[in-house]
């Protein structure tokens, strides 16, 4: 029995040593992610009214995500690249399944697999930039018009599926993550300008295709005082929470806005406001700095990567990660309309945390395999 335990623990030790002795992972990135996760759990503990089971549940998801990260970091990018189209197709397939199953049930973003429920759109956030990078990898750069059109199709299909859920915010983020690849691939500035111009011209037409509630949200964002009960109430209460936090905050578990339930969704989409209320501007800036460091590190890893695919994936992932932070921060401070975008690795929720950590696993793998010649 003892031998069994000894051999088992010995085995685990060896595995552990193999992972950490030849470090596949980038230590600065790993440490900053750990710091972020700890901040997230602390704020969640307060936001959930000291609900231990909720915090432990989230911690368990972090652990699961970290294991995935370690596993993925050992897969060479060449292999990841080979798997990319399948990964993308799987994401598409799940989105279609969700559309068929979720028929007639309002905004349904969840796929119930019996054991776990998850959001295929979150998976797409990772699969999208990988797919575009896969496409551009063997082709001449900067991308030519015909490549741009092909990529437009690759981006458009999942974006439309997600937008139909309807989850406009996530759809836009998926589009953005694909666009970042194009940008990093060296798309000429004038082409970027032309595309933005075309987008601006199409916007009024797109307005007609929005759902009523989506238009309402945009209108509410422009005039929050017209809807003090619905989303306008959310924005106002969120701003009160942040503003009343001041420079140093009200202290852990002292936020009246979230404790008295003025603040909606205070464990998920609006958790940033809880942090702002309880830890003040100091807490906010510290968190933003951690995010900025993580993104900077991702881009640095990308710049040192060995091939086009790796560079594009790591770089676009970092930029997209930054966009999530900006969109969520802008939303809770009243700069942007209310869209259901969680604060990465801080908001309560499994799919988002696990997919993000898997994404960082890809980045780690790119870092670990940077010196290998192709």
């Amino acid at each position, binding site marked *: 029995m003892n031998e069994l335990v000894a051999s088992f623990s010995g085995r685990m030790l060896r595995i552990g040593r193999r992972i950490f002795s030849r470090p596949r992972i980038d230590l600065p990135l790993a440490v900053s992610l750990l710091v972020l996760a700890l901040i997230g759990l602390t704020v969640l503990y307060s936001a959930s009214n000291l609900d231990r089971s909720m915090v432990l549940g989230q911690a368990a998801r972090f652990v699961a995500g970290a294991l995935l990260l370690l596993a993925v970091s050992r897969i060479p990018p060449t292999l990841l690249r080979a798997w990319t189209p399948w990964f993308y197709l799987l994401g598409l397939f799940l989105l279609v399944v969700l559309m068929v199953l979720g028929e007639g049930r309002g905004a349904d973003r969840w796929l119930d697999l019996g054991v776990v429920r998850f959001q295929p759109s979150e998976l797409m956030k990772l699969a999208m930039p990988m797919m575009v990078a896969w496409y551009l990898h063997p082709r*001449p*750069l*900067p991308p030519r018009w015909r490549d741009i059109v092909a990529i437009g199709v690759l981006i458009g299909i999942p974006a439309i599926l997600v937008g139909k859920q309807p989850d406009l915010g996530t759809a836009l983020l998926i589009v953005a993550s694909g666009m*970042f690849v194009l*940008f*990093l*691939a*060296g798309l*000429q500035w004038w082409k970027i300008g032309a595309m933005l111009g075309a987008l601006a011209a199409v916007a009024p037409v797109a307005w007609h295709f929005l759902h009523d509630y989506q238009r309402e949200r945009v209108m509410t964002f422009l005039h929050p005082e017209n809807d*003090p*009960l619905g989303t306008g*109430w959310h924005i106002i209460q969120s*701003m*009160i*929470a*942040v*503003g*009343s*936090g*001041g*420079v140093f905050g009200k202290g852990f578990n002292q936020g*009246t*806005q979230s404790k*008295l*339930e*003025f603040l909606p969704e205070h464990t998920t989409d609006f958790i940033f406001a809880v942090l*702002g*209320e309880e830890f*003040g*501007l100091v807490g*906010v*800036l510290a968190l*933003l700095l951690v*995010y*900025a460091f993580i*993104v*900077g590190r991702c*881009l640095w890893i*990308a*710049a040192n990567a060995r*091939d*086009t695919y790796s*560079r*594009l994936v790591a*770089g676009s992932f*970092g*930029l997209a990660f*930054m*966009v999530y*932070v*900006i969109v969520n*921060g*802008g939303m809770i*401070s*009243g*700069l942007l309309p209310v869209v259901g975008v969680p604060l990465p690795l801080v908001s309560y929720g499994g799919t988002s945390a696990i997919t993000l950590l898997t994404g960082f696993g890809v980045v780690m793998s790119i870092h670990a395999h940077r010196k290998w010649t192709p």
Partner: protein
Amino acid sequence: MNGRGELPDDRARRAHFGRRALAGFAIMFLMLVGVAGRFVYLQVFEHAEYSTRAKANRVRLKHLPPPRGLIYDRAGRLLADNVPAFRLDVVPDKVEHMDAMLQRLSAVVPLTDDDIRRFKQSLKQHRAFEQVPLKFRLTESERDRFAVNQWQFPGVSVDPYLTRNYPYGAEFAHVIGYVGRIDEKEQAKLDPDLYAGTTHVGKTGLEKEYEKLLHGTPGYELVEVNANQRPLRVLQRVPAKPGKNLYLTIDERLQRAAIAALGGQTGAVVAIDPRNGNVLAMVTAPSFDANLFVNGISQADYSALLEDPEKPLLNRAMRGGYPPGSTVKPFLGLGGLELGLRKATDTVLSTGTYYIPGSSRGYRDDTRYGAGRVNLMQAITRSVNTYFYSLAYQMGIQRFDQWMSKFGFGSPTGIDLPDETGGVLPSPEWKRKTMNQPWYPGETVISGIGQGYWMVTPLQLAHALASMAGGGLSHTPHLLTATSDGLRAPEVPYPQPKPVQLTHDPADLAAVRVGMLGVVNTPQGTAWGLGKGFPYLIAGKTGTAERYSRTSDAYNTNKNLDYLASRHRAWFMCYTPAEHPQIAIAVLLEHGAWGGSAAAPIARKVLDQWLAETPPSERPPVPVTSIATQAGAQGPATP
């Protein structure tokens, strides 16, 4: 880079990527700085403003539940209104030891076990910072006692609210129904936005049927409160939109007259206007006080209602099923004519017993030696069984069922009340399904006199009669005639389904009417004398159905009325004025000895009230001939 701007090799690609990554990071970082700047603006420059807005939780959202719509009868009498009352509310968040607090509180304001049980139930449905009602309708002395002791009970408050009140108590309990506390099941189904702050919901009757109309739209108040949550001032107020007021077809005086006429007997009376399906009266006796249920009936009161042998909670008018007996004869006779099986003048010989051709089993008439040769009119007037035995047999059960279901037998009438039952119109399929037995021809025969498995609700019979009286035009019976958005708003007629024409030859209807006029207005009629002194001709039909099947073929010679009442259900249905009917009535007595003697006089009292209520300008002119006829009509009614 070459001429086309292509990146020649990986080194160039890498260098270019580095520049792009830097540019991307710079752009993103600038945006992040923008967001950070926004936080600086909110948390440094606007801090004072937001701090005051948050510090004392100054702005609280208070839901304003809408006042429930009122219910009026056809003459504008208020049948359901809202009266101001006070209740005890608890905010669970602010109570440290709930059980201890309740114990101390019950010394100040008496709390029954029912109150506490219900309160604990609704605790689960509310969030901790929401008010949960503990006791409704505080008396003045309870309110005063609590006011003096309030300081001992943080989180408990007395709040004004509007409570439902039914001024007529038991009179409309089976029609209007009642509202009650929202329970867990209902909570799950109701729209939380619409019912924020609402404690009651329609449970039965019209209150349930028209919940959507009666409820209204809640409003809200943004209230500024101090640190102790005391309201300081209202910042913004969007008033609630009250529910729609309902105007009913029912006539309170007629309803009351019907209750008085029943005189405490167990039964039901339904009166319908054949011209439009308006339900003028719908009475079930015994009834119960609907007000008992509004704020939670006590266990003792509820058990008393449940254990009462006369079942006051049963809505007999639309849920009670009784064999219709001879009241089906006019409908069957009409079917014989309309289906072309018989002419009105064709006669049948009644010898006292009817035999199915080729069978020796006999079916009896009410008189031992029969009524002789009778045509349709005589058969209805004298309620001759043999005529209808043979007609039912001739028609066959399939056509019989088809015809009777046209008049609504066997299915709910579709009145605007919840949980109506459709009785039973027996058919071979029905029997196979429910009893797994074959159909016998004899059962077709007894169906012809409304016996066997037939079950009819008083409402169904009144509806069928109204359809026949109104020239064969079937209007879905209904109670709601119009709605309005408040007293001064105009009444908006409530749409009704289109009527359906059931018959095709007015002559057929006329023949049946002659038979039914005979019932009331000729000495052979089973309700002779009922029309005495009434200015219009009354057409009617009696019915006496047996509760138990007879144990032997012998004629029962026990004529004791109490004994018969225990075995019989007494029916009477009638309409008037005969030529232009304006009211059709069905009366049922659960313990009536004979339809003609027990049930018919009740219908007459309702008709008298109808006459007194209806101004002459709204009735047809009184026919001179009918007055002459009435003068000669005298003598007791025979069964």
